[in-house]
């Protein structure tokens, strides 16, 4: 007997995507702007977030979630900024998912948060599959990692909204070729804004802060915006991120977008 075929259409990550949409919607209702940060281990996520939290803590209610396989070291580092920080210890799981975000924020009052920064587990592969309900996803690459990082990990760059080149104070020592790196970013994700920063010398930090402020204003305008009905079809209809094309980059740190 030949087997019978039942047609179905089920997104394998449907549960995560639905939950991420719910999160995004409750974040927007409460006026929380959510930015997530992905990179390989050691690209400087925690150091950069430490800087951002310290700077932003004085101006707005900023909070952070930080994911790691083990230890609460990063949360302890980030908490020095004075901002509320919570560690998500994933155990053996190589990425954060929407349920982890939901669970870790159960007792936080969203109305008391303006900006939430989420540091994903250091991993350039797995986090790309999971929507966390963020407004913008930042992908970081440090100058010591090689200009071809975007070509090696195109999916994470393609699913992110903004690229940040970190540790630019080491650019010369690492013989970092900025033009090639930015060209590679534009190749895998045309039009992607690229920012450059050193969390050590603070070079580029003001521009990044300005960018975040602009993103926050854009998100506030969207807070009354009702997303389309939830679709359970392909992953292609991921919840809509901020209209990144409308975000203007601070002068002097603009992306080199090819013609």
């Amino acid at each position, binding site marked *: 007997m030949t087997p019978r075929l039942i047609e179905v259409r*089920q997104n394998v990550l449907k549960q995560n995507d639905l939950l991420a949409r719910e999160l995004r919607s409750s974040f927007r209702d409460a006026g929380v702007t959510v930015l997530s940060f992905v990179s390989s281990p050691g690209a400087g996520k925690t150091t950069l977030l430490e800087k951002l939290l310290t700077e932003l803590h004085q101006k707005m209610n900023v909070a952070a979630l930080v994911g790691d396989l083990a230890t609460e070291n990063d949360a302890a580092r980030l908490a020095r900024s004075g901002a509320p920080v919570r560690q998500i210890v994933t155990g053996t799981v190589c990425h954060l998912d929407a349920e982890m975000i939901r669970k870790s924020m159960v007792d936080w009052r969203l109305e008391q948060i303006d900006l939430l920064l989420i540091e994903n587990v250091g991993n350039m592969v797995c986090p790309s*599959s999971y929507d966390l309900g963020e407004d913008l996803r930042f992908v970081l690459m440090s100058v010591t990692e090689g200009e071809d990082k975007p070509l090696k990990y195109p999916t*994470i760059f393609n699913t992110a909204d903004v690229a940040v080149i970190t540790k630019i104070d080491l650019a010369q020592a690492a013989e970092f070729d900025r033009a090639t790196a930015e060209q590679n970013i534009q*190749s895998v994700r045309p039009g992607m804004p690229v920012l450059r920063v050193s969390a050590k010398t603070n070079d580029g930090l003001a521009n990044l802060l300005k960018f975040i402020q602009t993103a926050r204003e854009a998100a506030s305008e969207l807070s009354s915006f009702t997303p389309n009905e939830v679709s359970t079809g392909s*992953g292609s209809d991921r919840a809509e991120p901020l209209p990144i094309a409308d975000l203007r980059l601070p002068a002097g740190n603009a992306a080199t977008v090819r013609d």
Partner: protein
Amino acid sequence: MHELSIALSIVDAAAEVAARRGAPQIKAVHLKLGPLSGVVKDALLFSYDIACEGTALAGSRLLIEDVPVVAYCPQCHSDQRIESIQRFTCPGCGTPTADVVQGDELLVTALEIEP
């Protein structure tokens, strides 16, 4: 390496559909997989057998259909197949485009069951 948890989700999803249909024996699961899903095909196939062990899907096959990446070209006003995810440019006119319309699928499309 998150393919094992993806495989477990596929098994759960398939078992749920099967249960709704009176729990027939599932012979195969059809899956559409796009390169932008972030899931590696070989790792998923490897994980699938492990995920099926001890479930109603034990012994079933995972049949993966690779879905190409398609992006909209604003210059040609049409959907174009992107040959390499390292280079998002229109194959026709060379215009860069990030307007992906297909290619991040991770979608169970059909189940083969014993009649």
